[in-house]
């Protein structure tokens, strides 16, 4: 069965095409150089004229090169590729030498081995082909490995760059999903109304908008977003939304001050608060109350965003915001953070994030 497959592989036209493709000018040059060197070095001790000697060494060198190439292209060999190539050259050198001498004596083995000069010639050419061939083979293998290492390093660099670009894209996506034109223009229209009416509320509301925009933007550069900053962002956002729907939205934020230094992926609470406004309060004529909180518990920290809005639409698929948030939490906390949603009576949704303390023992 195996032999059949091997035979099929050898007769596979792509195998020979691959071999031909692998024969580069440089490798043929090396073979010719090897043939010239052996011929030049050995010619003083040989009886036949130099061109005949060169013809023999050239033939042997080309056979070695073909053996090297064929062994290199042979997929599915039971031994490592480099070993197959070394063995191929070690066998091809002496065998080709014998073949050349058998040819030159017309197949008369007795005459060939009876003549001490010829036996010495076989030994010299065969031996030097073996030694030089192996040295060049090992050199070629070494260079190939070097080239492979270079190619791999390039591949890694490329992958790293792609990864970096993806991270940058993700950050950009966070920004774009964050400051929605619809939100911005509606908010600006409200601020404009306050300014035109000469309302004393204009200045504090504008301050909230600035705080929101500032909090939403530098998170791109800053490496350590915290619960404290998230609290400010959420407060600014809820303040703006309260200006827009003063009768329909009320809110309370209760974050334990000791927790403000907790590291948190950017937009963690804001994603949940935006969902509460967008899906809970905004679609409801009566509106509702939003409660944001963070509390230390035994062995964990619990964060929550609860609203008394319209409640979840059971046929509405979960948004991309929640899926992204789950990924960001997993990236920051590994398996320590869980995000769960709960229904609130009589209507509304409570989102909870529980972050288990890092176990110092592990």
């Amino acid at each position, binding site marked *: 069965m195996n032999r059949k497959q091997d035979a099929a592989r050898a007769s596979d036209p792509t195998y020979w095409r691959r071999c031909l493709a692998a024969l580069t000018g440089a490798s043929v040059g090396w073979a010719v150089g090897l043939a010239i060197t052996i011929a030049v070095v050995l010619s003083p001790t040989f009886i036949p004229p130099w061109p005949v000697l060169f013809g023999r060494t050239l033939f042997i060198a080309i056979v070695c090169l073909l053996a090297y190439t064929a062994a290199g292209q042979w997929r599915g060999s039971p031994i490592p590729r480099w070993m197959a190539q070394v063995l191929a050259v070690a066998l091809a050198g002496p065998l080709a030498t014998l073949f050349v001498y058998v040819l030159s004596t017309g197949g008369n083995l007795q005459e060939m081995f009876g003549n001490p000069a010829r036996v010495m010639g076989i030994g010299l050419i065969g031996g030097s082909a073996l030694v030089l061939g192996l040295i060049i083979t090992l050199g070629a293998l070494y260079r190939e490995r070097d080239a492979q290492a270079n190619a791999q390093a390039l591949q890694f660099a490329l992958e790293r760059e792609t990864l970096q670009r993806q991270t940058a894209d993700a950050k950009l996506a966070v920004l774009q999903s964050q400051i929605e034109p619809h939100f911005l223009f509606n908010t600006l229209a409200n601020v404009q109304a306050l300014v035109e009416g000469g309302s004393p509320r204009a200045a504090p509301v504008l301050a909230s908008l600035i705080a929101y925009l500032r909090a939403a933007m530098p998170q791109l550069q800053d490496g350590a977003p915290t619960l404290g900053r998230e609290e400010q962002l959420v407060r600014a956002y809820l303040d703006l939304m309260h200006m827009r729907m003063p009768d329909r939205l009320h809110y309370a934020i209760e974050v334990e001050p000791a927790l403000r230094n907790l590291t948190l992926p950017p937009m963690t609470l804001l994603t949940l608060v935006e969902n509460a406004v967008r899906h809970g309060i905004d679609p409801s004529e009566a509106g509702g109350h939003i409660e944001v909180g963070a509390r230390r518990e035994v062995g964990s920290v619990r964060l929550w965003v609860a609203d008394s809005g319209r409640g979840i639409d*059971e046929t509405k698929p979960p948004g991309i915001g929640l899926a992204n948030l789950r990924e960001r939490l997993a990236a920051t906390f590994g398996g320590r953070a869980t995000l769960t949603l709960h229904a609130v009576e009589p209507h509304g949704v409570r989102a909870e994030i529980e972050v288990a303390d890092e176990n110092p023992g592990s």
Partner: protein
Amino acid sequence: MTPTALVADDEPLLRQRLIAHLAHAWPELTVVAEARNGREAVELFEAHEPQVVFLDVHMPGMTGIEAARCMAHRTRIVFVTAYEQYAVQAFEQGAIDYLVKPFDETRLADTVQRLRERLEPAAPTKAADALGAPLEMVLDRLAAEVRQRAAPQSWLQWIKASVGTTVRLIPVDQVIYLRSDEKYTLVVWEGGEALIRKTIRELADELDPQRYVQIHRSVIVNLARVSHVARGLNETADVHLSGRTETLPVSRSYLHLFRQM
């Protein structure tokens, strides 16, 4: 007779701003009512029958577009919207007047000018009729677009299950399988197990049948969680799940589901 108007917007500051600017741009106009949502707008429209209605597109409950359908042909409607690109295109095609928030005074003055012309007693009624046909088409298109953006499909996406003292909301993606258990149904999902009151039959109707398949009188499985199906004797089979040890029975009448697999 002085012209009358209704202003509907869920954001009070924007409502007041529009009324203040209308007082300046169109002093004769009387704003007879203010509405905070689509339902109120329709009620107040029926009570006052104003000649002009300014409708915010995005309002809680009934949207401005749905409210407009209840008033079509009985008044002149101006939509007010904030950066709703898709809507603006539709308005332009349908020759319906609209204001983009935050609007400026010159834009409002143009709108007032057009409304005044249409309110002239000498204005031919045919012009109004000519506007009638595209109005309904545009409203249909807008309503369809809003619906599509709000709910691309109507299959069940969340399962409500009592866990301890709270009611968990479980995205159906996380559900592995559902199995009936006497009066209740057992939900097994990534985060645990819970009993719900909905029956397997109800769930089979509500879940997307492309992804959640009933394989037994009492079992629905999330196809994404199936690792393989093992044939048994006597025309039965067992469904094996990725990352779980328990198997689920496939009864004879549902075996055809896995024939091609």
